[in-house]
Structure formats: structure tokens, C-alpha cells
């Protein structure tokens, strides 16, 4: 019988998540007790567990189920890299708090490099610079809900509008990620940015949008414009500082002026990706504040 391993392993063996289930070794000893009992219960009377045929059927059924689960996991892993996705959700409260602060005020942070551990990037809970998918996912859902609240205060709300807002924002997100991928391919940048990383970086702007929308709902249009301006500048600086290390070559990333068309092209690419974020932030929120 396979003992269920309830703690998930990271790519280098260190645990991504802590083992909070208390049922590890106890279930195995419980099962062994159950197996010795039916031999005594068989003398006493008829019970379902004493029947050797149903015992066999149970064992066969559970082995079939575990085989089926293995097959589904293996096949699903081919299409959606679930093991890689787990890395992006290995966050804790301290990391989320620090990252949110960084998204709104990135001006005091000095070291933007992602630390590595034996060639694999460290999980987000250990390094505040690592990208994650928890904040973008949560802020996307919060944005849809806040948009619903904003529409409701103007008596324009209906439940279908929530779905329209969600799919609209999702379409813009997909188009932005595809555009960034296309431009990265055209400029032939040798980078270790994966698609999911780009998805994470594009999703960080929803935090600024939520701040702007909530300020606009509470305090009116001037507050909306002020807070949106602040968050746009913050996201611009955040994106430039994060992407600079990944897209530009070593020398240019440290701020020295390196001549050559390729570095210039890469600089333009970083700038345009960063400039697209405030544009999207304004485009997706201005129609909600009247």
C-alpha cells in the first residue's frame, strides 16, 4: 500500500509547502489493525469486512483507483505543467505583504535579483523578487468584483456584466502576453523568462488598478486620477527594474552605456513593455469611474 505523501516537494527536494496534516503514520497502523480484526470477527458473525471476496474487491478497487489517478496525473502534466505551476503558488503572508508594498512603492528597494539555489530559482516564499501567480490571480478576481461594485454604484449593474468584464480583461491580458512573446522572439533575446513569468508580470498591474478604483469609489474622480497616476508610475518603475535584469545583457543592466543596436533594441523593448502597463491600467478602469 502506498503511503500518501502529503507534503509537496520542490524541484530541489526542499519542501514547497509544510506538512500540516497530522494523519501521516497513524493511518497505516490503523489499516493493519483492521486487517487482523476480520479474522476474529468472522467467528463472531457476518460483517462486510469479514468476507474475503469483498476484501479482495476492495483491495483491487483501490489499486485500480490509484493506477487511474497516476495515469490522469501523468497525462495532465503533459498539457498543463502542474508541477511548475505549484512553484508559482508557494507563497506565504510575509511574501505577499512585501510584494504588495513593492508594487506600490518600489523606489527604496535596492537588490532586484532573483536568488538561485543550485540552478533552480528559489520558491517565492524565500525571495521577494521571484514572480508568483497568487497575487495576479487574486487581484484579477478582486478587480472583477470591484468593477461590479463600481457599476452598481452607478446603477449600471447586471450579473452578466461581471462575466463581460472578466472575459474582457482576460482577453487583453492574453493579447498582451502574446504581443510580448512575439516581440521577444523577434528581438532574439536569450532569456530565461517563461510564459508563466510573463503572465505573472502582466498580472501585477491589477493591484494598481484596484487601488485606483477603490480610491475613486471612496473619494471621487480626483482621488481616482491621483492614485492611478501614483500606481502607474510605481508599476512603470517596478517593471523596468525587474525586466532590466532579465532582458538586457550583464553590462547594460548595471547602468553602463553599452553601444550596439542589439542593446538599444532590448532597451526599447523593456521600455515599451513597461509603458504598456500604465496604458492598460487606464484603459481598463476609466469607463468604470463616471
Amino acid at each position, binding site marked *: 500500500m502506498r503511503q500518501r505523501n502529503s507534503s509537496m516537494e520542490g524541484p530541489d527536494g526542499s519542501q514547497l509547502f509544510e506538512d500540516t496534516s497530522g494523519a501521516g503514520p497513524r493511518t497505516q497502523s490503523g489499516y493493519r489493525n483492521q486487517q487482523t480484526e476480520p479474522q476474529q470477527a468472522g467467528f463472531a458473525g457476518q460483517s462486510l469486512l469479514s468476507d474475503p471476496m469483498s476484501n479482495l474487491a476492495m483491495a483491487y478497487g483501490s489499486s485500480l483507483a490509484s493506477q487511474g489517478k497516476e495515469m490522469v496525473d501523468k497525462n495532465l502534466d503533459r498539457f498543463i505543467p502542474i508541477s511548475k505551476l505549484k512553484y508559482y503558488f508557494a507563497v506565504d503572508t510575509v511574501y505577499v505583504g512585501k510584494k504588495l508594498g513593492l508594487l506600490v512603492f518600489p523606489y527604496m528597494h535596492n537588490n532586484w535579483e532573483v536568488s538561485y539555489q543550485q540552478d533552480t530559482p528559489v520558491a517565492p516564499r524565500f525571495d521577494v523578487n521571484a514572480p508568483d501567480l497568487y497575487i495576479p490571480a487574486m487581484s484579477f478576481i478582486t478587480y472583477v468584483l470591484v468593477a461590479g461594485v463600481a457599476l452598481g454604484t452607478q446603477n449600471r449593474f447586471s450579473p452578466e456584466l461581471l462575466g463581460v468584464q472578466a472575459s*474582457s480583461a*482576460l*482577453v487583453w491580458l492574453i*493579447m498582451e502576453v502574446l504581443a510580448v512573446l512575439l516581440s521577444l522572439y*523577434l528581438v*532574439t533575446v536569450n532569456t530565461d523568462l517563461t510564459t508563466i513569468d510573463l503572465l505573472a508580470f502582466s498580472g501585477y498591474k491589477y493591484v494598481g488598478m484596484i487601488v485606483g478604483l477603490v480610491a475613486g469609489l471612496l473619494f471621487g474622480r480626483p482621488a481616482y486620477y491621483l492614485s492611478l497616476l501614483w500606481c502607474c508610475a510605481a508599476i512603470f518603475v517596478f517593471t523596468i527594474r525587474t525586466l532590466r535584469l532579465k532582458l538586457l545583457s550583464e553590462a547594460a543592466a548595471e547602468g553602463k552605456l553599452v553601444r550596439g543596436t542589439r542593446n538599444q533594441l532590448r532597451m526599447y523593448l523593456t521600455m515599451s513593455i513597461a509603458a504598456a502597463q500604465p496604458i492598460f491600467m487606464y484603459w481598463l478602469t476609466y469607463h468604470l469611474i463616471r
Partner: protein
Amino acid sequence: MAFTLYSLIQAAILCVNAVAVLHEERFLSKIGWGVDQSVGGFGDEPGVKVQLMNLVRSVRTVMRVPLIAVNSVCIVLLLLFG
């Protein structure tokens, strides 16, 4: 502004169709984007134009057959459901 995922799929199909109808001899060679003009230097600097030409050529090669199927399905669906 109300985009749906369906309109994204429509836009993607239209864009891929547009890339697929660019003829190699009659058009691309005439404007200097042909296959034979993409062999540049052997350094590590392919350049944006060469990458773009390679992209057009590979999209045309890969998507020719699936596009037939996708377009037929689209035509049937649009005729039936408007």
C-alpha cells in the same frame, strides 16, 4: 470594448489566414522578403527582418493544413448560426 474569448479566437483565425495567403513567388520575393534572401551572416545577430521572414515562412508551412479544417468548420458554423 466588450471583448469575449470568442472574438479573440475570431481575430486569431483572421490574422493567421492573412499570413497564410502571402504568396512566396508572386509577392514576398518581389518585396525582398523571400526565403532565398534570408540567409544573412552567420553571426549571432539574425536581425528583426530575418526573424520576421522566418516567422512568416514557418507559419505558412505549419498552418496550411490545419487552416483548411478550421476555415471549413468556421464557414459551416457561420452559415448555420449566423
